Every structure is written in C-alpha cells, then in structure tokens.
C-alpha cells in the first residue's frame, strides 16, 4: 500500500511540471490542427469516377466520356490523364496494347469547364485551363473522340487522373483517382488458338481421344454379400483455356425398382456385406482395380475425395477431376465398386453415370 502511494507521488511530481508546459489550451489547439488542417493539406480522391466507352470493340476508334467530381477547394489549372494497365498511381505505367489517344480531341465538357488539350501522347492527355477553384457541386464530364481502343480483351486498363494547380500538369497534385475500362468483344490473335475443351469417356479411351472402344455400359456380375463387384471406365480430358476444366459425375443411386443401394457421402473403404456403391479415380488394392491418372499434365488431378486409394464415394454432381489452368490431355480411370448386404432385395440394380466436362469461369 505504502509502495503504491510512493509510486503515485512520483508520477504526480513528474507530470505536475509538464502541466505548465502542455496546458489544456495547447492540447486543444493541437487537436484542432490535427482535425482541421490535415484533410485540407492532404490530397483526396475524386469521387463519382466513371468511364463510358462508346464502343468496347478491341482496336475500334471511338469516344470516351470520363466523369469525376473535384473534391478539394483548391485552384485547378490542369487535369492529367495517363492511360495504363495498372490503376495504382505510383506503379510503373505499362501502356495498354493497341491503345492510342494521340489523336483524341476534347469534344464536350460539362460541370467544371474551360479546359483544352495542353499536350498528348499515345497514352497521355493533359487538359489545361486558367487556374480556378472548382465550384460545380456535382460531377464533371469530359468527352474525347478519336481514341483507339486497346486490343487485349484479357485484361482491364485504367486512366490514372490527377488535378494540379499548374497549367501544364506539373507540380504538386490536388486530387487523384483512377477509372477502369475493358474491351470486351473477343478477337482472335493470330498466334493463338481459340480456347477448346476436349473430352471423351468410354470403357477404354485413347490418350488423345482419337478413339474409344464405344462401350458405354458394364455388367458387374451377380451381387453377393461375400463379394465386391467391380467395373472401370476411362475418360480423357484437356483444355487450353486458362481457367482449366472440371469433370462432374452425375446420376441417380444404383437401384432396382424401389430398392436402392446408397452411396457413401464421404470417402469410405469397400465393405463386403453392406449395401454400398462408390467410385474413385486412382489405383486401388482393396479391391485391386483402377489406375492412377496418366499423362504429362500433372495439374489435372482427381478431386480430393475421389483421389484416395481404397476409399470410395459417390455424390451426384460432385467434381471428380479438375485442372485449375491449362492442361492439354490427361487420362483418368474411374473405378466402380458395388457391395451388397444379405438383406438386399433381389433384382437387377442399375444406374447411369453422366460424366460432364465443362470449363471453369
């Protein structure tokens, strides 16, 4: 108790002298400066930024309308517009392939007006006017005609904009911000092939799908609680699309009339004497069936639940194999197991599995 009192006394003596240096008024002044001065001196972002491209066809000559709202109450003498792939102002500027604004003309302006083109290059336009404080409360717009669109449909491009007090785009900036655009109608680049998805499935297929044995059904034999019935089929799949592919397995459970053999919803070992229908896409030892995927494109793989040796499941609609990106050709073997309990009703149990290959988005 006495020790705490001593500590408090020491603290009091320490801060008592500071009180005369840092008065309440001084602290209040500091706070006021912090609250009011900082936003005024800092650059802010243009609000309600937007870009309207009259046509988004790659390589087309068209007009762009840029909208923005000036935010800072400071004199604006120029508006700098830099066309780059990357919208971030401090990053190096890569010119969007095919873009050309060197022959653009300013055909319309609204809101904050009085601008004219001061200078322009292939990807840079500087607008200038007599320095004036923006007074228009809503957004301003600037329309340029004669702009040649970029040609690369695979990525967006940006216009990095900044307002400055000088009339030549130099000096400290006032407001900044980027707008985003993208050309959208696909054109074929000569050196590239259009994306394609190749798929085949049968009991046996060639690696490149050039042929199959044209067998699309399989008799598995006679059900017995002491046996596991097996079958296998193959599929080959590949794509040059950068998003890759997925193969899903779809179908009803194995059934005979109203009697149904259900499938495990989690990867499960084959268990004789139970009613069980399942598949996987790897080599197994219990029972000995199946093969691991064949082919050089290792990024095409069975999905996790269907890639565990000796464990089987089947849920309609599940992805059984996929590739996250380009994978030209890979062959998968689908193993089917069928077990039956002694109480299973007699009958011919059938199902149809639809393997569907699709691109990813």
């Amino acid at each position, binding site marked *: 108790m006495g020790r705490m009192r001593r500590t408090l006394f020491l603290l009091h003596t320490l801060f008592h002298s500071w009180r005369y240096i840092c008065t309440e008024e001084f602290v209040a002044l500091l706070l006021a400066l912090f609250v009011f001065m900082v936003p005024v001196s800092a650059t802010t972002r243009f609000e*309600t*930024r*937007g870009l309207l*491209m009259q046509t988004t066809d790659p390589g087309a000559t068209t007009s762009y309308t840029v*909208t923005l709202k000036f935010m800072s109450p400071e004199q604006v003498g120029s508006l700098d517009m830099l066309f780059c792939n*990357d*919208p971030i102002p401090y*990053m190096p500027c890569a010119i969007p392939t095919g873009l050309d604004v060197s022959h653009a003309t300013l055909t319309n302006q609204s809101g904050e007006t009085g601008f004219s083109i001061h200078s322009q290059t292939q990807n840079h336009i500087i607008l200038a006017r007599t320095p004036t404080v923006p007074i228009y409360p809503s957004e301003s717009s600037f329309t340029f005609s004669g702009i040649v669109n970029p040609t690369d449909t695979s*990525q*967006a491009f*940006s216009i990095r904009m900044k307002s400055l007090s000088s009339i030549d785009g130099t000096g400290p900036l006032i407001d900044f*911000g*980027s707008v*985003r*655009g*993208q050309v*959208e109608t*696909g054109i074929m680049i000569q050196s590239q092939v*259009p*994306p394609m*998805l*190749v*798929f*085949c*499935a*049968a009991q046996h297929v060639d690696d490149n*799908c*050039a*042929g*199959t044995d*044209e*067998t*699309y*059904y*399989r008799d598995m034999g006679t059900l017995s609680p002491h046996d596991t*019935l097996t079958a296998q089929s193959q599929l080959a799949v590949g794509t*040059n*699309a*950068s*998003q890759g592919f997925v193969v899903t397995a779809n179908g009803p459970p*194995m059934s*005979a009339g109203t009697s149904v053999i259900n499938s495990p919803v989690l990867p499960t070992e084959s268990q004789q004497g139970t009613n069980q229908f399942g598949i996987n896409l790897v080599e197994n030892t219990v029972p000995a069936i199946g093969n691991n995927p064949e082919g050089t494109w290792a*990024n095409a793989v069975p999905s996790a639940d269907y890639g565990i040796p000796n464990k089987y499941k089947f849920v309609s*609609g599940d992805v059984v194999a*996929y590739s*996250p990106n*380009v994978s030209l050709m890979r062959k998968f073997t689908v193993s089917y197991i069928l077990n039956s309990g002694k109480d299973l009703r*007699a009958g*011919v*149990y*059938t199902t*149809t*599995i*639809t*393997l*569907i*290959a*699709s691109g*990813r*988005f």
Partner: protein
Amino acid sequence: MKHIKSLVLAVFAVLLSVTYVLPPTQVAADSSSALGIAPKKNYVIEPGNSVQDKLNITNLDQATALNLTLRVIDFSFTGNGGTPKLFLDTNTPQTTWSLRSYLKVPQTVTIDPGKSKQVDLNVAIPKGHGAGSYYSAIVYSSGSGQGGNIGLNASGVTLVFVNVPGKVKENLDFTHIGAYDRAAQGDLSGYHYFNTQAPDTIAYTLKNNGNVVEAPAGNITLRDIFGRTTTINELNPSSSLALIGQERTFLTCVKLKPEDVKLGNTTTKSSTCDASGLWPGYYSVSADLFYGQNGNLTQEVTKVGGFWYLPWWFIGVAVVVLGVAGFYGWRAYNKIRNKLYGPRVAKTKSARRK
C-alpha cells in the same frame, strides 16, 4: 371367361418378374463420345439486338460418327471457386440471370469421324431488357449407355455469358486476403496464417452483391518486416469471374511464370506460379482493387491482411539459437551474481527450521 382372366394375369406376372430379375439387354452404342468444344463464349449485346455466332464442334474419334443432343440449361456456382453448378433437371425454374429464353441452338448434331462442324448459335436480347450479366450453359450429350449395371454418358458444356450494357448494380465486399494453398480450389479453408512452406500463391475473396459478373483490376503489395515490398500486378491471371451472389476467391502468384503451351502447330498462353523466394518472417498483404462496368462508376476496395512464413528449418535454428542464448545468458547471470553476492549456499535443514 374366368380361365382367360387368370391366364392373362399369370402371363403378366411372369413377364413382370422376368423383366425385373433378368439383366437388361446390352445394346451396343454406335456413337462416338470424343468431342472438342469451346468452353466459354462471351458477348456484349444491347437490348433489342442479337448475335449470330457459330459453335465449332469437333469429333475427335477417327472411326465413328458423333451424335450429339444439345440443350440449354442454367448454372450457378459451387463454393468459392470457378466450378459451375449445372441445373440439369429439366424442371428447374429459370434463374434470374438465365439466358434460356434468349439462347437458341439446334437440338441435334451429327458430325462425321475426325471432322468439325459449325452450328448456329443465336442470342437475341429483347428491347427494354435490363442491363446486367446473363448466363446459361449449352450441354452436348453424346455416347449413351443402355444395358448392364452401369451405363455411361459423356457430355461437354459451353458456358455462355452475355453482358447487357447500361446502368447496373455493382457492389463487391472484400472479405479475405492472404497466403493460399491452391489445392483448396477457392475454398476459404485454403487461407493459411502460418506457413511452413514458402507461399507462392496469394488469394483474395470478394463477395459479389451486384447484378453483373465481376473481375477486378488493381494490385497487391507484400511487405516484409524490413519494409521491403513485392508488388503483384497480375491480379487475375486466369481471367476468373465472380458470379452474381458468389463469394469468389481469386488466385494469383507472388511470382508469375508465363508459359507458351504448344497445341498442334500453334501456341497458347498459360502461366504458373514460380518459386516466390520469400524469406522467413511476417508479411503484410495489402490490395487495392478497382471495378466498374463500362458507363458505370469505377469503385475501389482495399484490404490489408498478413501471414507468417516460418519454415521448419528456421524454427529449428531459432530454437537452437534461443537455447544457446538462454544457456549462456544464465551462465553470465550466475557469474555476475556470484561476483556481486558470492556463491549460492544450499540451506541446511537446521537453517530452514530457523
């Protein structure tokens, strides 16, 4: 009369039991199941306009003709990745983004062995149709299994996206960013805060609350504890999309390695993740993303995350270094203490009693 009635019933019963017990007849299929199709089609169509395009379908089988049945279905998404969830049931109601009413393709196509065929695809957007993204899928069904216990069908799918320009609702929520394990295929469980292997993939997850599919632009910056930065400019190297309502995980690489993939006599572009070359330690990850359709406002979302990269060798070395430092520190402490106060003396029983 009674006799005939019981005879008919008996025949019917026999027929029924035979059908039920005997294996179904195995019917050999006479169609190829090897097809090549376009995985995706994109169009921009103004309301009141239409697009006439061709679908190029190839029969890769050199010996057998390919008989295809075509139909248009809707799709959505599965989880946080790019896997389409196909609504195969013909009774499924149309989605709000469905193209089923506007997309027309022939119902059947036959293609000779080893040949390609171009079939008509027509998309017509009615006048006054709202702006936004619309999408459906074309399913090509081939080889049909009839007979045996297991029948097999092989189908391919083309995803068709149409962007109707105009004022749209766009809203992306930035939910996650960090080091990611690609094997998780977009699932949020793939984000790892502690990594014992150098992360080569950075992911970010966006929830699309708008009525258009989105693909953001921008960049990601990695900063280590010494302030050194690595910038990732290729935010979306696979041109992935966040579908309407989807919380989508986009993957990119710390170091992207572009590749030319040869396909026949031509090449196609691909990319893989190169070794990131990151040093052990903590990394902050900040993203600055831009999105906005043509004629709409450009919007910006940012998020900061972080992760640790602590390889096992580093943990081992750190434990050894700390152990050695602790050992010598303890020895130094004892040495100083002994010099100041003399060596410690173990208390005797009698001293403890006192």
